């Protein structure tokens, strides 16, 4: 085989692999869109489910997912960013910090259904929060923490060391240096990590299964101790648990969830590129 032919063959194989990666996502989004679009209307998104979910809308599930994402953010963002700052800026390389890092890596590898069971045991039963938005948000927050911590820590570490040295040489405290110089520079990376983490939380079914999700609750929740419907679980329910379910509604629900999650993705990408253009190093 000539060198030129081999080169050609290699190039073709690499291109094909790339297409193989892109194709499924295009097909998936396209298929969901084509199947789901006819169901989408203002009434579908903002209406209550009727007829044992076989008609009406998905509003309680939309609100539930929004509330759970917000709740996750409230718990996971401050803790996650604080841990990242501690690990990246303050922690020395000791046995203690190595154990913390090991714990975070392992936390990221725990299957989501195990988080669900853990949330049931700790928040729902032991802490008596009941099946509630509070319990669900906390469970999702714990699942999201490793993502937020590792991306934020990475973003902080990318900020050049010379900024820290120069800032400290000007007589500032370490916290002033972090607050005024390091954190603003790491912000795009931190925000991206937060959004990607929350996006994962918004789409998860298993962690909310035992901790918050209601099978059928055609009203909005009253408090953080209330149950709520949520889009991923609702989709699971109407796809497997309800006989005689119109396919249109299943795909419509999938499209709403997909739109929500993908728009968070877009938000992350826009944030990143907007800040990168302003970056001064």
């Amino acid at each position, binding site marked *: 085989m000539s060198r030129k032919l081999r080169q050609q063959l290699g190039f073709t194989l690499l291109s094909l692999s790339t297409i193989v990666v892109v194709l499924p996502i295009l097909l998936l989004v396209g298929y969901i869109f084509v199947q789901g679009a006819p169901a989408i209307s203002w009434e579908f998104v903002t209406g209550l489910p009727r007829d044992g979910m076989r008609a009406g809308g998905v509003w309680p599930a939309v609100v539930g997912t929004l509330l759970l994402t917000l709740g996750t953010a409230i718990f996971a963002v401050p803790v996650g960013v604080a841990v990242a700052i501690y690990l990246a800026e303050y922690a*020395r390389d000791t046995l203690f910090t190595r154990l913390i890092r090991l714990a975070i890596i392992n936390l990221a590898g725990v299957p989501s259904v195990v988080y669900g069971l853990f949330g049931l045991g700790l928040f729902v039963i032991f802490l008596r929060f009941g099946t509630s938005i509070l319990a669900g948000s906390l469970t999702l927050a714990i699942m999201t923490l490793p993502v937020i911590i590792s991306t934020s820590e990475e973003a902080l570490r990318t900020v*050049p060391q*010379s*900024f820290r*040295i*120069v*800032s*400290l*040489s*000007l*007589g*500032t*405290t370490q916290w*002033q240096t972090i607050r*005024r*110089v390091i954190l*603003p*520079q790491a912000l795009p990376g931190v925000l991206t990590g937060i959004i990607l983490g929350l996006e994962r939380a918004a789409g998860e079914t298993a962690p909310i299964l035992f901790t918050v999700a209601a099978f059928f609750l055609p009203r909005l929740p009253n408090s953080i101790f209330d149950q709520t419907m949520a889009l991923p679980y609702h989709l699971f329910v109407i796809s497997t648990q309800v006989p005689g379910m119109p396919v249109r509604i299943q795909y419509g629900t999938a499209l709403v969830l997909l739109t929500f999650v993908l728009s968070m993705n877009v938000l992350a990408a826009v944030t990143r590129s907007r800040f990168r253009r302003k*970056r*001064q*190093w």
Partner: protein
Amino acid sequence: MAESPKFWLDRVSYVYEDGVQALRGVSLHIYSHQITAIFGPAGGGKSTLLRLLNRLNDLTPGRRLEGRVLLDGEDIYAPGVDVHALRRRVGMVFATPVPLPMSIRQNLTYGPEMAGVRQRARLDELVERSLQAAALWDEVKDRLDEPGIALSGGQQQRLCLARTLALEPDVILLDEPTSGLDPISTAKVEASLQDLKQRYTIVIVPHSVQQAARVADHAVFILQGELIEEGPGGSLFTHPRNRRTEDYVTGRFG
């Protein structure tokens, strides 16, 4: 009248975490209103010595310091010393100019603001005065809100000098401040130093023997962590007393 030294290093030894001994029993007086140049081959402990003077070495873990470093008679490594106040009093300019990722004006006001200076007028005054002193005011006075990184390399280094001056320090440490600059920018920085020594104590690690000879009122030759010879800049380079100093300044090694 014998003037008391600004800095007094009293038998200072310094060992890094990895066991490298950077300084061996260095004793040295550094006086106000003159330029002290610390020179010698690379890796000889010059930068270590400089960073001991504003305790920037605190950032390196596992250090071991012996001896005393006195600033105006006070041990700067004594317990209870305010390191942040010390670093404002002993400002530093680095080899590579690093403007902080903010505007030219903010680069200058950052240090004072973090130290508690809040009045607009006072900060404006500091900005203008420090830029004047670093010979940068005329070039940047109409673009103070542009990012510091937008300046040329030579301007960036003068911005870094101005940033140090805005702290209103007693002492200015310069670690090879012109190593990345062209001859014209280098000349500007050296000229600024001659003006600045009227008001400050200046300690410089020059980037060459030639620069040491040009700027030094007092020259200190450091070789492998030891102080080999010190003396007035005028005579040390022309009539070194020590063989090793002579070999180094005449270019036989280094």
